[in-house]
């Protein structure tokens, strides 16, 4: 009886485990191996041209000016984009959750909609909304007396524009989670505060925000891990330009791997990015622990 159940257990788990092992876990291990070789277009033609090169790829990456540029861009995107996204999510969630808000169902769906849209499609929309001459954004700013800006052609503005795009696209996801966090706060806390004469602002500061700590932490971590994988946004909107100001690490990996077929080097880039993303997660978790949010 027991052994029949055990057999069934393995049989049921087997299809999924085989897929995950063959198409994910083994490739990850292989990527580590690949990053120690000079796998390039010649090796793609014949494996005879493949050589073990030890840590050479990692040294190349660390000496590559473009890698540091891409890393700087990615960190900029993460460092500005994550707090902005979480702040927008918190603000939106507080508004939707407010007792005074009407049509809550409609607003929740409306604010969440960008999350389920297709990234490529909305990136293409964004590109034309922020176009310098005919874009609606510059037209609206013009009405306020602001001169047209070259959002996507100016190396100092392109990344901020992509950050705005990412916030627009993603804040609804975090908002839904924060909303669930808000609903979990016991109502008695607010009643007690009201009896003590605390106004809306003090209730927010002394009840809502502290109680939301763990939720905001989760949302921040999820958003951050996702933002380290920046790729499709610059691929569609700016193609990494202007002057490589929106080139991300993952974009560089894609270029090296699938435009130039330097698969060894690309694997090394992937692992270096992974290490940076893990390190950032570790730092955030440590900070959260100190506050008791993890």
């Amino acid at each position, binding site marked *: 009886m027991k052994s029949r*159940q*055990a057999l*069934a*257990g393995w049989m*049921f*788990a087997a*299809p*999924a*485990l085989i*897929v*995950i092992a063959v*198409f*994910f*876990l*083994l*490739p990850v291990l*292989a*990527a580590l191996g690949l990053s120690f070789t000079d796998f390039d277009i010649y090796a793609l033609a014949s494996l005879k041209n493949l050589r073990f090169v030890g840590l050479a790829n990692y040294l190349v990456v660390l000496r590559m000016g473009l890698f540091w540029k891409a890393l700087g861009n990615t960190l900029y995107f993460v460092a500005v984009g994550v707090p902005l996204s979480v702040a927008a999510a918190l603000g*939106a969630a507080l*508004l*939707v959750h*407010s007792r*005074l*808000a009407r049509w809550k169902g*409609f*607003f929740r769906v*409306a*604010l*969440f*909609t960008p999350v*389920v*849209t*297709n*990234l*490529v*499609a*909305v990136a*293409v929309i964004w590109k034309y*909304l922020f176009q310098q*001459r*005919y874009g*609606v954004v510059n*037209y609206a700013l013009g009405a306020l007396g602001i001169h047209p800006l070259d959002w996507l052609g100016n190396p100092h503005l392109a990344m901020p524009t992509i950050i705005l795009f990412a916030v*627009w696209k993603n804040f609804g996801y975090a908002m*839904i*989670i924060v909303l*669930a966090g808000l609903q979990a706060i016991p109502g008695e806390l607010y009643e007690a505060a009201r009896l003590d004469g605390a106004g*809306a602002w003090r209730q927010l500061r002394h009840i809502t925000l502290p109680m939301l700590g763990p939720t905001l932490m*989760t949302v921040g971590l999820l958003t951050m891990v996702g933002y380290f994988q920046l790729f*499709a946004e610059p691929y569609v909107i700016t*193609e990494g330009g202007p002057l490589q100001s929106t080139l991300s690490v993952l974009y560089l990996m*894609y270029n090296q*791997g699938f435009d130039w077929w330097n*698969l060894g080097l*690309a*694997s090394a880039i*992937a692992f270096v*990015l992974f290490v940076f993303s*893990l390190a950032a*997660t570790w730092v955030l978790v440590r900070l959260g622990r100190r506050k008791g949010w993890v």
Partner: protein
Amino acid sequence: MNAARAAAWSINGLLALLAGVTLFPLLWMLSVSLMPAGSASSFPPPLWPVHATLANYRALFVGADLGRYLLNSLLVSGGITAGSLLCNLLAGYAFAKLRFAGRERVFGLLLAALVIPAQVAMMPLFLLARELHIVDSYAGVILPALASIFGIYLVRQYARAIPDELLEAARIDGAGELRIFLRVVLPLLKPIILTLTILTFLTAWNDFMWPLIVLTGSGHYTLPIALASLAREHNQNVEMLMAGALVTVLPVLLLFLLLQRYYIQGLLLGSVKR
């Protein structure tokens, strides 16, 4: 009571403003997609199609093979959804309810692997696809997505609530494990099946990087890949691109609106631990 009314006005006003910001780009897309070619690129930028036309859609479906990409997307996303639903349900149930040696260790390993981003695997995955001769084919996109750790986790969390007595009773009645899964377990998992279906379909539909890599010729392009390539080739034709964007967005948007309760439930279950 004037302060309260002012507060209500400002809260609802802010909400309306925010909803305007999230919805405007989508409404603009719809509007521009109905404009005659070339008319959106003028100043001031028109917000409304004065002479509405479906010419852009016709040009896309007749001239740019959009119907084919739409079909590709449906096939690939449908295939991934059906296949991974089967794999994840079986595995999630097994990890939750069937006792077998090594179960906890294997599941722990899977959870640990969740921290590894998919991109790390992509270079060897491409080489593997080449060995299997599935580069530039539907199988190349579908096969690697036929199971997901997150999906297994979701099913396992949900299936753990199934009482053991129910399963034991079926076993005493002489039912085999597969029969128990089909007749007893699956009906109980219905809500999570819907959740998983919509999550998987949306993820598959919107997936970008791997299809971009593995689909080397345009014959098997999914909609996002085709749209990205159209956007590079026809930089000037805003109206046609907006029609293409609309076709890419609309199917999943409708699916979401239809099943939003299940989608959001999956989102919340997933955020607890991922």
